[in-house]
């Protein structure tokens, strides 16, 4: 993925998420959602290093991963609107969308719930010899779920081609990593399974991309899984209506200084790839795209309850 594409994807994600926060405030969408503002470099950095055949699972905070992987933003947004055109026909909502045609296997709303699923995708790849690498996203909080431990042990034991990417964004809801993890260096947990544990600055698109490229290549070569910790910060609240009483506005302000989008923007400006005008244009285009996305979603038809009856089981 070229850097410009990455930049524009990061903008798309940011504006998608901002739109969602707005839409909730305006009462135009219901239920709940978790936005990934501030973490766009992880999503896009990872996606930039993957091949089309590769796979990905995500978390409750998964819009960015999905968009980075190539989702149709309109259909994703339609899912949040609970419309028939949504990825899950309005049945899933923010946390429950999949699109195997682009190697995207979603999340299920259970923190850590997709870790074994991703491991199973890895087993499938190994059985088929498909050369597919699966990226398994999860958060610092999710790394405390037992199934993390079970899955990594098994993946390591069987040398499955899975790259476990923990987005350490400092918090699990209100619980800071230092209050949730006895050893807040999540990459250190890799040693328990005898696999590589690597830590990168998750706000640095290039660092994420390069680390993933290298670890994915290892996994593809049959060297087994790895654990990649991307340190970042959740600039948004945990979910809508989070008063963020568990952290200070100063801390947030300083985190905003490290906004991964501004960082990539600065890079693109300093190396001459983009002018201020071009930046403004790209931003405008991304905004316009999201406006269309929202319009598409909101004007899509509602799903029909009758459609449920026959869909419980696969035939």
């Amino acid at each position: 993925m070229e850097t410009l594409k990455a930049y524009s994807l990061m903008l798309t994600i940011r504006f998608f998420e901002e739109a969602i926060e707005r839409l909730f405030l305006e009462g135009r969408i219901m239920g709940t959602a978790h936005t990934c503002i501030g973490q766009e470099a992880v999503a896009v950095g990872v996606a930039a290093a993957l091949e089309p055949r590769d796979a990905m699972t995500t978390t409750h905070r998964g819009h960015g991963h999905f968009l980075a992987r190539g989702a149709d933003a309109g259909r994703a947004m339609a899912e949040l609107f609970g419309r028939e055109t949504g990825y899950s026909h309005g049945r899933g909502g923010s946390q429950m969308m999949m699109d195997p045609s682009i190697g995207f296997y979603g999340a299920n709303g259970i923190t850590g719930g997709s870790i074994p699923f991703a491991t199973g995708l890895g087993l499938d790849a190994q059985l088929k010899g498909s050369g597919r690498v699966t990226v398994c996203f999860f958060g610092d909080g999710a790394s405390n779920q037992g199934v993390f431990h079970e899955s990594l042990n098994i993946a390591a034991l069987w040398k499955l081609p899975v790259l476990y990417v923990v987005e350490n964004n400092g918090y699990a809801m209100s619980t800071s990593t230092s209050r949730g993890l006895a050893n807040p260096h999540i990459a250190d947990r890799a040693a328990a399974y005898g696999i590589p544990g690597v830590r990168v600055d998750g706000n640095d698109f290039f660092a994420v991309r390069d680390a993933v490229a290298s670890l994915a290549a290892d996994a593809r070569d049959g060297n087994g899984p790895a654990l990649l910790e991307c340190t970042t910060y959740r600039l948004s609240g945990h979910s809508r209506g989070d008063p963020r009483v568990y952290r200070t506005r100063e801390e947030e302000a300083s985190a905003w200084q490290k906004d991964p989008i501004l960082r990539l923007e600065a890079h693109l400006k300093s190396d001459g790839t983009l002018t201020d005008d071009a930046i403004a244009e790209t931003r405008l285009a991304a905004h316009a795209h999201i406006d269309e996305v929202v319009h598409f979603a909101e004007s899509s038809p509602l799903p029909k309850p009758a459609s449920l009856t026959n869909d419980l089981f696969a035939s």
Partner: protein
Amino acid sequence: MRTITFTHILRETLAAELRRDPSVFLMGEDIGVYGGAFGVTRSLIDEFGATRIRDTPISEQALTGIAIGAAVAGQRPVIEIMFMDFITLAVDQLVNMAAKLHPIYGQSCPLVIRTPPGGGRGYGATHSQSLERLFAGIPGIKIAAPSNAADASGLLQTAIRDNNPVLFLEHKLLYPQRFEVEDELPEPIPFGFAKVAREGDDLTMVAWSHMTWVAQHAAAKLASQGIEAEVIDLRTLSPLDIDTIVESVKRTGRVMILEEGPKTGGFAAEIASQIMENAHDYLEKPVRRLAGADFPMPSAKNLEAACIPSLNDILALARELVQN
């Protein structure tokens, strides 16, 4: 008298129990400064501190097991499972450990598991389930499912003072609802006593938790049409107050059981069976269950509504039941 939300009376009750008994403590994810996903424990940390209002990592299995161990050692933990859907992760600890402690080992396990079931908020298939069915068939676990503030307080006190594991259901639609209550917190309400929420002689509606309100609205509507429905609010599922149900059914001869969760394999089936076993000869019509769709809870508002028994569903069934 005063009005109070379900959330607030739960908080007051927890505070009162924390003051009363130093062995009571709360444990769960984000229950401290954050106050819990639904705000029930908000500000309790100010009075009781982080030792007794204890945040845990996201580890439902261990936090449940830790509470069990502490309970056997003499503490009275009250844990919060943020959404009832997540209790699936603690099934082993509850079924294989907590539920066995007294019958097999002779040990007391005074543990309360507070958790919100239910849909209606568009939270989707893993944040909306009514999973009392997972525990209703496990001997050794009690289940309380209050529908209003006074009962919530009285039953929670009983749950905390009980020497056994108690699953305490707080339907998420009830949290913001306001109720008239006495100024003082009520006395503990003994388990196993249903409440007749509305009297009537034409048919019986059995419900618990949020469904009690849907039943009561329906009963009010029916009354305006000359049909007097009795509404029985179970308050606890285990133990089940079958006597109150049977007494009512003997009078009305017609009964429907309301359940939010999917119809198949739900707790309404247990109630229906016991009614049949105990009042068969008084039934004018077969016992009817009105329950959720046999489908995971979808998130879209219109789909979700279609999966939960509605006022209209109840009215239609009630009319059918009272016919001839």
